[in-house]
């Protein structure tokens, strides 16, 4: 018998009688102001939200916020003038010197500040981790209240990889004191378009 057969046989012999799945496992979250809720939580997890009217406003903000920044890349055609390098590389190691990545988010979750990204937003999966700084552009219309709503909207396997990203990378492994910028991006700005 292979280990596979052995394990499956033991599991079958030892598992209890079938217990049905619960019917109630999706819940509704109600927020008085879903945009404000998202912005507050994003701040709580170490990110920053900016409500902007159009791409021109984003450009202006980035130029002021990261003056003189080089090694900037974006997947958003409207912001192409900010970029001096590309995310469309075949070897992810080529992104090692990336300073700022500006990408689009597919959907955002108000309860926890998470933004869903899959390979349609990420030409290389490592982009939001390997870049020193990260900016994500979302539409306010994509905001959903909670994770149950999020999983109703997305299909996790449309592409080979997807992630819920909430705030910049962080660690509290040294005496529980929070440090932003562990192995992933050191900061996250989310631009919210109407």
């Amino acid at each position, binding site marked *: 018998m*292979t*280990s*596979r057969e*052995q*394990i*499956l046989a*033991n*599991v*079958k012999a*030892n*598992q*209890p009688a*079938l*217990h049905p*799945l*619960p019917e*109630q*496992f*999706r*819940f509704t979250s109600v927020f008085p102001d879903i945009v404000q809720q998202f912005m507050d*939580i994003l701040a709580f*997890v170490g990110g920053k939200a900016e409500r902007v009217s159009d791409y021109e406003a984003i450009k202006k903000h980035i130029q002021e916020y990261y003056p003189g920044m080089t090694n900037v890349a974006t997947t958003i055609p409207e912001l192409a003038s900010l970029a001096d390098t590309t995310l469309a590389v075949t070897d*992810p*190691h080529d992104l090692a010197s990336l300073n700022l990545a500006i990408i689009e988010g597919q959907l955002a979750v108000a*309860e*926890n*500040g*998470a933004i869903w990204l899959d390979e349609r937003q990420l030409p*290389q*999966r*490592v982009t*939001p*981790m*390997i870049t020193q700084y990260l900016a994500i552009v979302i539409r306010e219309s994509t905001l959903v209240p*909670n*994770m149950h709503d999020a*999983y109703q909207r997305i299909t*996790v*396997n449309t*592409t*080979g*990889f997807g*992630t*819920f*990203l*909430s705030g*910049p*990378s*962080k*660690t*509290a*492994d*040294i*005496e529980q*004191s929070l440090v932003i*910028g*562990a*192995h*992933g*991006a050191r900061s996250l700005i989310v631009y919210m378009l109407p």
Partner: protein
Amino acid sequence: MNQLNLDHATASAVFNKNEPRVDWHDETLWFVRAKRDRAAALIPEWEDLREAASQIKNHVLSNMHDLLVQFEENARKNGIHVHWAANADEHNDIVLGIIQKTGANRMVKSKSMLTEECHMNNFLTSHGIEVIDSDLGERIVQMRKEPPSHIVLPAIHLTRADVGETFHEHLGTEKGATDPQYLTEAARQHLRDTFLTRKVALTGVNFAIAETGGFVVCTNEGNADMGAHLADVHIAAMGFEKIIPRAEHLGVFLRLLARSATGQPITAFSSHFHKPRPGQEMHLIIVDNGRSRQLGRTEFRNSLKCIRCAACMNTCPVYRRSGGHSYHSAVAGPIGSILAPNLDMKLNADLPFASTLCGSCSNVCPVKIDIHDQLYKWRQVLMREGYGTTGKGAAMKAMATVLESPRLYRMAGKIGRGVLRFSPAVAENRFNPWFNQREMPAPPSESFRDWYVKNKKS
């Protein structure tokens, strides 16, 4: 000093020698517990969520065979190589085989309690493979040649000064540096170089989705992603109980996991892997290592519902005051004390006794495992199987007789209060491990029952 060869009571005594440090450890973990409470309180449906998570996991346990088969089939369709390991040795051999096939002699790894359980690092090192742990806490303890003391916060037993010392020695940071920002930056630089140069990366698995054949890995640091997305070969290792039926069930688990663990609304990265990226190889190892046996133990099978949030450790009065290393097991604390005797009853017979049975663990557990009941039940099994110490055997027998008879119980209480008042040395002696490092409280002059009878208005 190696606490790992000692039983829990003895190792705790060692830990308790430094009183200010024990107080600090206790408070640090309680602080994490308090953050969990605040996060939970913000979710009005928290208790319903726990119930849903518990029911989904009950279903998983009862449908494990079919879910695993379904998962395997879908994962294969996604282009993932699926391996099965009956035990730790087989798991380690599979990992070694995959690494050797690539010709690499080093690997970067993100947090995986399963590989701790399998003692994989030592095994690989002995076969000439260098393994670097990339979670900051794990890297710290790895440099110190210690195991993690906590499943979510591996270096929680260390102060910033300890970390400063370790980094000074291994990373050349300034002597005496204690600023977490500075120390973390040093580790970031060191590990970034590691991520960029390793061809093989190993990650754990938080959830595996039967319906889609993919798996989810949660981190705050982004280290699992950095490793996996830069490596040519990604190996993911999971205990088979990580399976869930459908992606939408993640809504329940991801809402509970980080809130229960650290009080965060979700981890910074909840990454869903379904296919290797172009040109990459992806392997997934499904491990049993005693889990199918535990599944057959009616009283203890619920322990397999665990999502490893560590809330039961943070809240446990014994864990907080004895430290993770005193449990001499990869998973410490209340849940570890249920899992470990299944792996080795004799070696871990002391662990179910390392609890006050106060029930705080069961109250916080996001998947509603009856943790303290299981600890109590293990004690009975262990005594029955002859794994109790003699002292414990006699004491437990006396205790059982007393507890069975209300009259004896009242009498024992009276005598006990008398003894404590007039001769505390009977309890405060070195033969009573519960007294070590403790002062016995002043005994009340009357029992609750006496008080109740006197004050009851009939």
